[in-house]
C-alpha cells in the first residue's frame, strides 16, 4: 500500500515538474530568440530596425519595415477574401445546411487543415500565379491605373497571389472554428426568435450571431495570426525579392516569415545578419503570441458562459 502511494506521489511530482517545463516553454523560446538578437539590438536601436526600410546587410543596414509592410499586405488581402467567404459558409454549415452537408463539411475542413503548406504553395504556383499574371493583372491594372491596382510588376508573383493562397489556407480555420461557435448557441434562442415570426436569416442575424460574436472574433484572430506567420506557401508565390515596399496588390511582396526562410544559407557569413533574422523571428513570435493569447482569453470566457 505504501509503495503504491509512494509511486503515485513520485509520479505526480515528476509530472508537475514536466508541466511547469511545458508552461515555461514559451518563456524559453522568447528568451533564446531575444538572447541571439541582442547583438544587433546593441548596435542599432529597435525603433530604427522596425521603422527603416533600408535593407542591405553587407553595409550594415537592417531595416525590417518593408518586410513587415509586406506581411501586412498579404495578410490584409487574405483576410478580406477569407473572412466574408468563411463566415458565410460557416453560417450555412451550422444553421442552414441539411445533415449530409454537415457530414461532408467536417472531413473536408479537416483535410484542408492537414495539407502541407508546401502543397498549397505548389497549387498556388500551378493555378493562382498564372491566373493573376495572365488575366487579373493585365485586366485590372490597365483598366484601373490607380492605387491598389497600378503596378510595374509583370509577373504573377505578387502580393495578391500570396493573399489568395493564404486565404484558401485559413478558410478551414475560419469555417471550422466559427461553425463550432455558432452551433454552441443554445437552441432555445432560435426557437424564441422564430416563434415571434422572424425569418431564419433574421433569427440568425439578430440573435444567433449576436450571441456567437465573441467566439467569431476569436476565430478571425486565430486565422489572422496563422496568415501572418505562414511561410512556405507565401514564399513560393508572392515573389519575395527585394523590390522595396509593395504599393499595389500586383507588386511583389516580401513578408517577414519569408525573409527568415530565405536567408538561412547566407546569414552566418555577414556580421549581425543572423542576429537580425532571429530578431525578426522574435517579432513574429511576439505578434502571433499576442493574437493567440487574446483569442484564447475570449474563447475561455465564451466557454465559461456556455457551461
Amino acid at each position, binding site marked *: 500500500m505504501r509503495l*503504491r*502511494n509512494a*509511486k503515485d506521489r513520485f509520479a*505526480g511530482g515528476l*509530472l*508537475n515538474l*514536466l*508541466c511547469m517545463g*511545458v*508552461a515555461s516553454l514559451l518563456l524559453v*523560446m522568447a528568451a*533564446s530568440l531575444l538572447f*541571439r538578437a541582442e547583438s544587433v539590438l546593441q548596435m542599432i536601436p529597435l525603433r530604427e530596425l522596425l521603422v527603416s526600410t533600408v535593407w542591405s546587410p553587407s553595409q550594415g543596414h537592417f531595416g525590417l519595415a518593408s518586410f513587415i509592410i509586406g506581411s501586412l499586405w498579404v495578410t490584409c488581402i487574405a483576410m478580406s477574401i477569407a473572412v466574408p*467567404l468563411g463566415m*458565410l*459558409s460557416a453560417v450555412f*454549415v451550422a444553421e*442552414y445546411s441539411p445533415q449530409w*452537408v454537415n457530414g461532408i463539411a467536417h*472531413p*473536408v475542413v*479537416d*483535410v*484542408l487543415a*492537414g495539407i*502541407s*503548406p*508546401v*502543397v498549397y*504553395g*505548389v*497549387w498556388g504556383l*500551378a*493555378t493562382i500565379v498564372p491566373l493573376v499574371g495572365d488575366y487579373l493583372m493585365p485586366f485590372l491594372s490597365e483598366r484601373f491605373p490607380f492605387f491598389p491596382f497600378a503596378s510595374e510588376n509583370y509577373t504573377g508573383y505578387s502580393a495578391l497571389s500570396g493573399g489568395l493562397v493564404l486565404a*484558401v489556407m485559413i*478558410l478551414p480555420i475560419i*469555417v471550422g472554428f466559427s461553425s463550432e461557435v455558432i452551433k454552441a448557441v443554445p437552441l432555445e434562442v432560435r426557437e424564441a426568435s422564430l416563434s415571434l415570426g422572424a*425569418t*431564419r436569416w*433574421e433569427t440568425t442575424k439578430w440573435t444567433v450571431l449576436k450571441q456567437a460574436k465573441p467566439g467569431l472574433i476569436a476565430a478571425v484572430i*486565430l486565422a489572422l*495570426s*496563422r496568415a*501572418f*506567420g*505562414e*511561410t*512556405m506557401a507565401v514564399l513560393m508565390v508572392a515573389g519575395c525579392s527585394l523590390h522595396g515596399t509593395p504599393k499595389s496588390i500586383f507588386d511583389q511582396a516580401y513578408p517577414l*516569415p519569408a525573409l527568415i526562410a530565405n536567408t*538561412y544559407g547566407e546569414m552566418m557569413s555577414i556580421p549581425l545578419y543572423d542576429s537580425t*533574422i*532571429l530578431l525578426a*523571428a522574435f517579432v*513574429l513570435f511576439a505578434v502571433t*503570441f499576442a*493574437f*493567440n*493569447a487574446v*483569442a*484564447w482569453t475570449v474563447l475561455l470566457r465564451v466557454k465559461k458562459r456556455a457551461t
Partner: protein
Amino acid sequence: MMNRRKLEEQLVKALMIAATLVVSSSLMLILVTIVWKGLPVLTLEMLTKTPEGGYYLGKGGGILNAILGSIVVGLAAIALASLTGLPVALYLNVYLGRRSKMAVAVRFALDTLWGIPSIVYGAFGFTIMVMLGMQASLLAAIITVALLVFPITVRGMDEVLQMVPDDLKEASFALGSTNLETAGRVVMRRAFSGLLTAVLVAFGRGIGDAASVLFTAGFTDSLPHSLFGPVATLPLAIFFQLATPFPEVQARGYASALVLTAIVLAISLACRLLMAGSSRAQSK
C-alpha cells in the same frame, strides 16, 4: 414588407450557398491540380531511387531520400512528443481537477504554442543548435519537429481525455486506486483509440512541415544514415524542385507534392476509420 423580408432571406441564403461552394470547390481544385499535374510524371523510379548527380538539372533518380527522411523525422519526432506528452495530458485530466490553475496555465501555454508559426520553431531550433555546437542534422530536425508537434499532440490527447466520463474515474478511485493507477489502467485504456488519433493528426502535421526543418535538417542526396548527418525531407524536396528553372524538374516537384498529399490523406483516412471504429465499440 413581407416580400422584402423573404427576399432578403433568399438573397442571403443564395450568398451562403455560393460561398460554401467556393470553399469546397477550392479543396477539390487543390486535389485535382496536384493529381492532374503530378500523376502523369510519377514513376516507380521516383519512389524507389535516390537522386543521381544532376537530379535537380533534370537527370535521373528519385526522391526516396526525402520520403524516407520525412518518415524518419516524423516518426521519431512524434514518438518523442507522445512519450513526453501523454503523461502531461494524463496529469492534466486525472491528477488535476477541473478548476486547477496549473491546468489552465498549461493549456494556455499549449494553445498559444500551437499558434506560433513553424518558422519560429525553426529559428528556435537553430538557436538550440548553435548553443550546443551542432550542425544541421537528423537529430536537430527531430528535436525541432518534436517541439512543433508537442502542443498539437498534447492538446489533441487532452480533448480526448476530457471526454472520459467522470463516473469512470470516480469508480476507479472508489475501489482504492491511486491517481497513477487510474490514469494508466482505466482512463488511458478507455481513450486509447482517441489518443492514437491525436498522435496521427500530429504526425500528419509534422511530416508536412517545411519551415521548421529548413534551418535544422539541412539537405542531402543520400538516405538518412546518421543522427548527426544532414537529412532530406519531402516538403523541402518539393520546394527545391519547384525553385529550379527546368520544367521537367518542376514536373517532378508536382509528383512529389502528390506523394506528400497521398501520405497525409492516408493518415487522415486512418484517423477517420479509427474514430468510426471506436465510437461503434463504445456504443455496443
